[in-house]
């Protein structure tokens, strides 16, 4: 039993980092994988707009859905963590006050809440970009050039 508590204790801050950076990593993968797959599918030597027999549209659609879901998960986690750290106003602990010494937990909680809020906003932005990138699939024929 203490083993699982220990595991949870060690995983907890990593979950916070996932909440902060999940969308960033998901979008990066979406961009690079999507672009890479497209270069391969649309290269002069490729038989059709597909990679390994699967159509480019399916690949990019799948990437968008999966990585979008990862970003949503990270965002939900960020929301949850922000609420747990007291749903603090973003300026808490940042604006100048009396300058009296504060307990460590207050500083730490403020910093963690800041990170969670950051993750919330970042994941929203990166989800938007993943969706925009995937949306273009619906509007453009694969491998069309101007």
């Amino acid at each position, binding site marked *: 039993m203490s083993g699982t508590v220990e595991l949870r204790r060690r995983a907890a801050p990593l979950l916070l980092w996932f909440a902060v950076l999940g969308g960033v990593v998901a979008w990066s993968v979406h961009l690079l994988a999507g672009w890479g797959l497209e270069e391969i599918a649309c*290269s002069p030597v490729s038989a059709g707009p597909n990679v390994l027999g699967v159509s480019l549209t399916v690949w990019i659609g799948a990437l968008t859905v999966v990585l979008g879901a990862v970003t949503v998960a990270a965002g939900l986690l960020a929301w949850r963590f922000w609420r*747990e750290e007291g749903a603090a106003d973003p300026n808490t602990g940042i604006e100048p006050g009396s300058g009296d010494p504060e307990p460590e937990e207050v500083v730490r909680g403020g910093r963690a809440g800041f990170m969670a809020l950051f993750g919330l906003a970042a994941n929203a932005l990166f989800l938007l970009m993943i969706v925009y990138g995937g949306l273009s699939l619906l509007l453009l024929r694969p491998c069309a050039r101007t």
Partner: protein
Amino acid sequence: MTADARAVTAPTAEEVAAEVPAGRPTGWWGMVMFITTEATLFAALVASYFYLRFQSTPEWPLGGIKAPELSLPLVMSAILLSSSGPMVLADRGIRAGHVGRLRLGLAATFVLGATFLGLQGYEYTIKLKEFTPTTNVYGSLFFAITGFHGMHVMVGLLLILFVQVRAWLGHFGRGRHLHVQTTAMYWHFVDAVWVVIMLSLYIGPHL
């Protein structure tokens, strides 16, 4: 049982806010950042490899060059990757204060790494009979990427040598081993890059 189940669920706010990472020395972060930038450099080179590969005719390698034979590179891989073992021994050893394990581990890593380079040199003599960097872009990519990796191995060997000299002079002990740790990090990085090169340049053309 239900008490356990609850314990496994939500982490507390305090646990989430625990400071991770924390407590790393400046030299450790310096090596992490250096490895990050070098890894990006290898990523750019390997991405260029794939970019050029999929631009070309379906034939790869180009120009009638044979796909790389695998037996020697597999041996080289086994040697290089296993060299991380003694390096871990050295690193863990000195953390516990065992200078002997440090020296032994470093020596073994050095021998394995040098063997890898020697075999790579031998591989080059064989390959150069078939193609050179100036034959076509496949040749350019092969020699540039493996050569750049080889240079990193060389730098790694120099680092190991340097640390070994200092180990014999008694510079390291429990609580005084940062340079061993950073050298080990660099060495493991060089090994990891080789895995990527092995998969991309050697095994890839056979798939």
